[in-house]
């Protein structure tokens, strides 16, 4: 804790060594988060870079409420969302779930999946349309409700639900196909 405090104080003072220490400590985890939100490694690294600049510029405002890692992660996610919003166009996608889709989703809850490597899952997530990926991340990993997601992304709750449904379906199809063919051959 003292070490982290020293790093924070160093970063507040603008010391490059402290900034490098903070970067070394959190960059790998933050890149892991950003890879889920972005469509490729290059974009993810751009977000991490921009996010860390925001971290270093605004670290004075970190009050020690919650862990430093969570605070940095929040900044990274916000930065990623800002990037995503430029290209996001949910209006092109269907807003409402059909009755059939509702049933399919309910039925699929019981399916068991084989363990998959993180790299494979990341690749599958990155292949999704931007809207699916964003809602899936916010719902599954950040545990926001559809109402909150609707607020964050300026969309309706129904749109959020639809995006999540389609994201799951996308993953389900890919994983089932992969189970049949073996994931390695398709990736």
């Amino acid at each position, binding site marked *: 804790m003292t070490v982290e405090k020293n790093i924070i104080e160093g970063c507040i003072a*603008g010391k490059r060594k402290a900034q490098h220490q903070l970067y070394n400590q959190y960059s790998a985890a933050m890149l892991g988060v950003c890879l889920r939100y972005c469509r490729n490694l290059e974009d993810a690294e751009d977000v991490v870079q921009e996010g860390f600049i925001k971290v270093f510029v605004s670290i004075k405002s970190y009050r020690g409420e919650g862990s430093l890692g969570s605070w940095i992660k929040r900044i990274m996610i916000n930065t990623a969302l800002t990037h995503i919003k430029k290209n996001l166009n949910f209006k092109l996608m269907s807003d409402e779930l059909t009755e059939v889709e509702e049933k399919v989703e309910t039925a699929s809850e019981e399916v068991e999946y084989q363990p998959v490597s993180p790299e494979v899952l990341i690749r599958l997530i990155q292949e999704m349309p931007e809207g699916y990926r964003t809602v899936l991340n916010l719902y599954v*990993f950040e545990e926001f409700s559809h109402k909150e997601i609707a607020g964050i992304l300026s969309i309706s709750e129904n749109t959020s639900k639809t995006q999540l449904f389609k994201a799951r379906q996308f993953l389900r199809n890919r994983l089932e196909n992969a189970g049949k063919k073996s994931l390695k051959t398709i990736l």
Partner: protein
Amino acid sequence: MNRAKDRIDDLLKSTLSDYRKEPGAGLWKNLSRELRLSGAGKSALRNFKWIIPVVDFMIMIPLALFYFTGKENPKTFHDNPTMELPASVHYSANPPAVKNPENNSRHETASIKQATYGLKQNDYPEIPAVKKDQPSSMTQEAGSAILPSTKDQSSGFTSVTGYFRNLYLTGGYFPFLIKGALQKQPEVNIPGTSFIPDIGLRQQPLWLNNSMVYPAIEDYGKKEDWIYGIHLIPDLIFTGNRQATFGFAAELTGVRTLDVFSIEAGFGINRTYDQGRFKIDYEQYDSIAYYYKVNSFTVDEATGKPNFNTTIETVFDSVDYFASEATKNTYTYLYFPLHVGAEISRFQRISLHANAGIYYSVLISKNEPPSEFRNDRALNMTIVNESPSRIASQVMIAGSLGLHFAIRTNLFLNIEPLVKYPIKPMYEKRYNPGKTWSAGLRTGLYFKF
């Protein structure tokens, strides 16, 4: 709200919640550079950035003082009051005649050192010596010549090599020097010579502002030389799909000349202004309608009709708003020019030079203020910075036409329209900025010591 569970969610969370991937080594390097540029951190360069203007001042102020106030050519009569001429008088191929003074009391001995003129004795053919207080055989030929005089009568006037040479040069190759040359002169009388009272503009001995004349002698016909330049360059930068932006640069250069050709290199600081753009997307609850809310009612027994007790209720809804905001960004570059040039035309004091070269510039600092958009009633506000990022280093090719005006033999005013064309776009590729070029006016001085 109940969260719908799915096995997929569990799979994702269990696999990716703690997923880590080491970034490439270049990421910290880029980040470090961005931190330096944005000022969020102290780098070695940032600590010593103040050195640049300090060094500029340290160089420029002594140079300016040296040049404009204290500098006098050591080979002048001002600095060498004791002058000694050899026994014989040297003159140019077509020497002007000299005349005896009308008032002998003014005749004094010339003691002028040959070295004072910076000329070799053998440079010019000799003419017979002129002795003190003796009418010269050249007296009758006296015309427009003006000779220096000294206050010492012990020795005769022996050599005017430098003088004749001066006269030739000031009247010929550097006609514009005459006026200046007439202004200051030492009181020097040479036996056997006299002032010519009325020779038009040349009313006083001519030799005399040697700080101007002698460099001319020494530089005449000289093929190789070093000169130095200090310039200010306002310029406009045109980018395909963006508004033209303004820049301003200050530059120090050294020029190596060889005959009519030159090569110029140095460094400069360029400050460029650009417009930052923010897109603001927010929602705001606005009144869109109203209705009458029925609070209660009573039935009129006489008519059987109801009487409603109502209040007006306003209906609000969230309305999407889009706004944009422009800010002023500032970028500072350190750049290194390298030009080659050639004099293509000359007329008296004016000469025209064509130049071409390259500029290598490095972005050393930037100031991109954030959006200051505020709206307390806004909900879900999203501010997106749409200002394109600038690349960190740039190579530009440049062409210019310089108009030189000789203020003095060693000081030139330069006015030079300049066009620069970056090899790479000024902004990062993802912004698709279109072709960029700039037009500026390089204005300043060239001087030599």
